[in-house]
């Protein structure tokens, strides 16, 4: 989907819910409505206005000192510069056409300071949950978005293959993680979805953080990794065996067969299936949500210490696996 048609869909949803302006602080949300490729940073940042979308104009305005990395349909005069003074940022936001008279403003987070300052400059505006609006809009993927996710998954699978090729007795868990991150860049990508998980399965609770532990012949290694490609996330999860050992993979195929339109997320989780939405990143699914055609999900199963996973597109029939798995 082009960014313009995504934005049109967002604006339509805003009008449906009577939201006059979206003021977004979350980078993935800004990426979704603007198509901007700004500097990748790990972790969370407190809310600050980084992207503004008034329904009345449908134009996106971004906090940026340059148009480098931004789509061509965002003119330079729709950019406002970085400031360490929140009042300066708000002064730049409130002059954007469609902001000053707004009655309902959708935001994707808040801080006590910005709440106070916003009440000062826009005293009549009510703040509502913009994340919930975007979550619903994003849920159904179109063909272009599915293709982008498929391409991201392919890059993640290649990085996982690089780990598999390097896996040998004497290699440390952190060497596997290092190999995954390096291999990601061979596809021209520099933004991981998350740092790779490369941990020996030792019968205890599954671990997340690669350590200096040395991998031995026959060890089973859980590998989970992901990359961001063209604004979409592609993730993989698999168990590799060091050396010649055999392993019986869990019945991922049977599990995927249950991920059909109408299935309740809570029921699937109750049956031991780890399932989450995937797209611009992790996309939240609540227990009472039901799968609908067009959703993309990351599914994982852990059976007898063996982890396996896939990304799938929900359809009216069997889900379509977006990858080679």
């Amino acid at each position: 989907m082009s960014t313009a048609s995504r934005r049109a869909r967002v604006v339509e949803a805003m009008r449906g819910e009577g939201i006059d302006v979206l003021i977004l602080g979350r980078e993935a949300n800004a990426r979704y409505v603007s198509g901007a490729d700004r500097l990748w940073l790990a972790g969370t940042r407190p809310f600050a206005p980084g992207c503004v979308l008034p329904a009345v104009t449908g134009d996106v305005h971004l906090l940026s000192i340059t148009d480098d990395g931004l789509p061509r349909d965002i003119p330079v005069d729709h950019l406002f510069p970085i400031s360490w003074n929140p009042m300066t940022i708000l002064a730049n936001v409130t002059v954007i056409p469609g902001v000053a008279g707004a009655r309902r403003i959708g935001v994707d987070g808040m801080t006590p300071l910005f709440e106070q300052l916003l009440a000062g400059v826009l005293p009549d505006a009510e703040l509502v949950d913009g994340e919930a609006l975007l979550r619903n809009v994003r849920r159904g993927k179109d063909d272009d978005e599915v293709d982008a996710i498929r391409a991201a998954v392919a890059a993640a699978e290649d990085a996982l293959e690089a780990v598999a090729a390097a896996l040998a007795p004497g290699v440390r868990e952190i060497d596997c993680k290092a190999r995954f991150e390096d291999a990601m860049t061979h596809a021209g990508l520099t933004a991981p979805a998350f740092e790779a998980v490369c941990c020996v399965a030792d019968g205890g609770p599954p671990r997340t953080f690669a350590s200096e532990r040395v991998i031995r012949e026959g060890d089973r290694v859980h590998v989970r990794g992901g990359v961001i490609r063209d604004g979409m996330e592609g993730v993989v999860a698999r168990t590799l065996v060091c050396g010649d050992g055999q392993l019986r993979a869990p019945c991922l195929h049977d599990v995927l067969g249950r991920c059909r339109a109408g299935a309740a997320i809570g029921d699937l989780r109750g049956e031991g299936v780890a399932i989450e939405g995937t797209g611009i990143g992790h996309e939240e699914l609540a227990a009472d949500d039901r799968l609908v055609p067009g959703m993309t999900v990351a599914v994982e199963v852990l059976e007898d210490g063996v982890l396996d996973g896939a990304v799938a597109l929900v359809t009216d029939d069997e889900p379509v696996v977006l990858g080679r798995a």
Partner: protein
Amino acid sequence: MTALVDVPQPHLARMRRERHERLVETMRAHDVEALLLLGQANVGYATGTRVLAADQGRAIHRRAVALVTGDGKPPHVWTWYRDGAPPDLPADHVHDGVALDLDHGTRTLLDDIAEIAGTTTLTVDELTMPLRAALHARGWTIGDATPVVSTAKVCKTTDELACIRRAQAINEAAIAELLPMVHAGTRGTDLTGAFLRLVFELGATANNVDPIWQVMPASIADGPASVTGHVVFPTVTTDRPLTRGDVVWVDNGVSYHGYMSDYGHTWVVDEEPDARRRDQCRRWRDVVAATLDVTRPGATAHDLAVAAEKAAGKRPWLPHLYLAHGTGTESAEPPFVGTDLGDDYDATVTLAPGMVLVLEPVIWDDGYGGFRAEEIVAVTDDGWQPLSALSWAGWG
């Protein structure tokens, strides 16, 4: 550069204990009963909990949440990654992760807090909108945690400084191994791949920013469009190959147990820097020396800015950034020097022992490009000590 084996290891359990004591003491001084922290840099500081370093689109939904109580009992943490909770946290203080963009998650968290702390006043750093709505619906009072957390965090303990120093030493060691790759034909993405492999092999616990290898234009007009009319930096790494004579500004940050490094330098591809570039480097080092000359407890951020400006004859830094910033569990945190908050603000920022400064002046001669690097120091009882050790090979 310092050899990694010679860099002292921090005592992590002592660091967590001292940070918690400092935070509780600051809470009491601010009359704060309970802190609820959602910012991952703050949760890491308050509890020592590690989370998976992830793109924000995932990190926000898989964040750990911390509750710190003024009674001085160990903090509570709700996390999706149980093996990231420190071993000294009691088992019943480590809870399953909560989805704070969903009503169910916010309800679970607030029910837990009511039982643990028995309070209806929460001092928070940030809120999701469902959490904000749930607090309003319960009639709880919301305070601002930023002053408390910033005050506690700004002066580092010995072990925090050791973490920063180790993160920086890992970063510098990786760069030293990477330098032989810096030639015409190498792509920015090749450098990123090799850098990430090296830092993880050397023991970095996370990478926190897409490494920057920005080829700088000779003049601002030749570069990407600038909203402010000033030098545009940083921009996102691409797979464009380097060419002979390119001037590359490098900026990257990897961390060690939550503490950030910040490596900045200027490279010239396949050529020795000429006399004019060496002069830019000399002027940059003069600015740093002049700034460090006045760096001691009691000096203000304004004193540092004045010293730098005097050495350069004009304000030698990017106006949308700063002359210097602090670093710790966030890549840029207080104290700030030379931001657009202005001279009056800078005059209120007084240096104290344990504060960290990342000095990042910029020398720019429009038409001939510029020089930028970063040096990190910690304020001591009577001056400062270095936490970085840049190589000046080739720069005279």
